[in-house]
């Protein structure tokens, strides 16, 4: 029957089953490719993954000049860039989105421009970033931040237009609230669940922008490594990175869901 609830144990078992199915399908595909060419590294077997993983965690550099492993270097670089860019973008977009949602003249001035810029992938404007912020950390931060900013600001401002009723604002004014009070008590508290939902939607694009930039610029980071290793078909390394990226997305998704439940227990969707 459509939408009939299933018991919790079954839901968990089916979830695990899905993962097993995925792994089995991969094993079959890998075995088939290996039959064609026993040295193949395109769809590597589990043994090859072990070797790839070992290579990833092996410390680099020489005895006199030890360096952290490739994995440590790349994760540190990528997550720091992602974190910095994402939070800069989100913080700015919250300010801008609320300003646009609250004041008509800001809305009129910025809404068309924002909607235009939101459609342009930042990676396509690489030369502009080079001119403005150079080629190092600042460029990655700016690229992720702006990639998130335009979309996020737009959806926050639309959330305010759609969810915050004028009558609530009028009521607050009647009770003697100031502008800052209305923005915090009426607008912000009402749109918080939408903001958190939108954050979840922005994690994917943010990672895509960052990885695309890393593939072009810089000598470390997950995007760089994925490009370098897939050039020489070391797919075991590439797939490990893709798995890490997938898990990152999954964890961030669940983390934000949990955050929403915790911050806005009143909001049930």
């Amino acid at each position, binding site marked *: 029957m459509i939408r009939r609830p299933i018991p919790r144990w079954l839901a968990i078992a089916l979830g695990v089953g899905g993962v097993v199915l995925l792994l089995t399908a991969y094993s079959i595909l890998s075995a088939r490719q290996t039959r064609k060419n026993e040295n193949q590294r395109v769809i590597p077997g589990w043994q090859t993954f072990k070797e790839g993983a070992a290579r990833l965690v092996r410390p680099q550099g020489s005895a006199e000049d030890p360096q952290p492993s490739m994995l440590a270097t790349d994760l540190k670089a990528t997550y720091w860039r992602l974190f910095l860019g994402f939070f800069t973008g989100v913080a700015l977009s919250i300010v801008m989105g609320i300003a646009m949602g609250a004041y008509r003249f800001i809305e009129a001035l910025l809404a068309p421009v924002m909607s235009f810029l939101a459609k342009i992938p930042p990676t396509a404007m690489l030369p502009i970033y080079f001119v403005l912020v*150079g080629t190092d950390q600042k460029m990655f931060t700016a690229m992720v931040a702006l990639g998130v900013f335009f979309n996020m600001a737009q959806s926050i401002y639309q959330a305010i237009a759609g969810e915050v009723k004028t009558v609530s604002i009028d009521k607050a004014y009647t009770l003697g609230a100031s502008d800052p009070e209305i923005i915090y008590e009426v607008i912000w508290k009402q749109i918080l669940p939408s903001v958190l939902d939108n954050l979840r939607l922005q994690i994917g694009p943010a990672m895509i922008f960052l990885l695309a930039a890393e593939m072009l610029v810089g*000598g470390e980071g997950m995007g760089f490594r994925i490009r370098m290793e897939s050039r020489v078909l070391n797919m075991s390394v590439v797939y490990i990175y893709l798995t890490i990226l997938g898990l990152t997305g999954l964890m961030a998704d669940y983390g934000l869901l949990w955050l929403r439940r915790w911050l806005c227990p009143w909001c049930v969707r």
Partner: protein
Amino acid sequence: MKILGWTCTLMFLLSVGCSGDKPTTAGKTGGPAPKFTLAWSEYPSWSVFGVADELGLLNKDAGKQGELEKKWNVDVVLKGVDYDTCIQLYGTGEADAVCITNMDVLGSATSRNSVAIFPTSTSVGGDACVTVGIDNLEALKGKKTYGLAKSVSQYAFERILTARNLNPKEFPFESMDPQAAATALQTGNDSIKSIMVWNPFVMDTLKKVQGSKRLFDSSEIPEEIIDMVVIGKDSLGKDGSKRFAQCLMETFYTINKRMENPETRDATLVALGAKFSNLQLEEMKQVVTQTKFYTTPAEGLALYKSDKFKNTTMPAVVKFCVENQIVEGKATVGFDKADSQLNFDTGLLQGLIDGVESK
């Protein structure tokens, strides 16, 4: 410009038609033509295959044959894609043959045994370090040079410094996509003043950036960076594979003859330029001096038989690849040794010279 290009192509086509030395249909073994795929990317000596398709020597589509395909009774499928994609198509077995450098092929050869059947060109200036405001190597010390890591760019950069008795460790090399690096240098940003890239980016940058300078280039290491055509050993085991190899060779040398012939030279260069970053005639004339073609089978054979290439260059390239973790463990390289992972095979080139037509 487009019209000029088409006019030239048309003239070229006419001249091919009139030249009278069309390959004779040698009446090869009957039956359906076996299908083989070549992956090529835009590069002076590889765009030759794209031009051959335009001229009707080859037909890039499956199930259709050009002049030379008919002669050798094979169906050559041409896949003109990005260089990295070429490497992947070849590595996955989707392409039987690939246009690749003698360095990048080592990575592929460790997962798919490969046979280098003939060299197409060598870089003598086509890879260069271009700087702005840095006039000598002393000034470059300690400043970052941007270029694609683990590629011929980094190889040439370190090799030339070593050849000049300098320590590459004192010259930091930072990875950046060559096109992005060329763009970054053009924007005049302070953080980037030196790039190591390949053509067309070298020429493009020198032309567009005022005060830019060719600090050094691959002309100091001639016949070390080799562009070539490689076939998977598994594909060479298939029926008709030798005819496929011979067809590719004849195609390559036919276009080379057109480039030598004063009557067809310019038109051929224009056609190649259209498939190499849309360069015009004058630029293409310069390109072919920096990317020296192996215009005859004898020239190609001379490279494969040269002691320097065998005993110095290839071991140095392998060493570089191992040190930079481009290949795990050593890829075995052999000359006319069938069991090595990468085998430089002189048999087909010799056969072409001797005029022996293998079955």
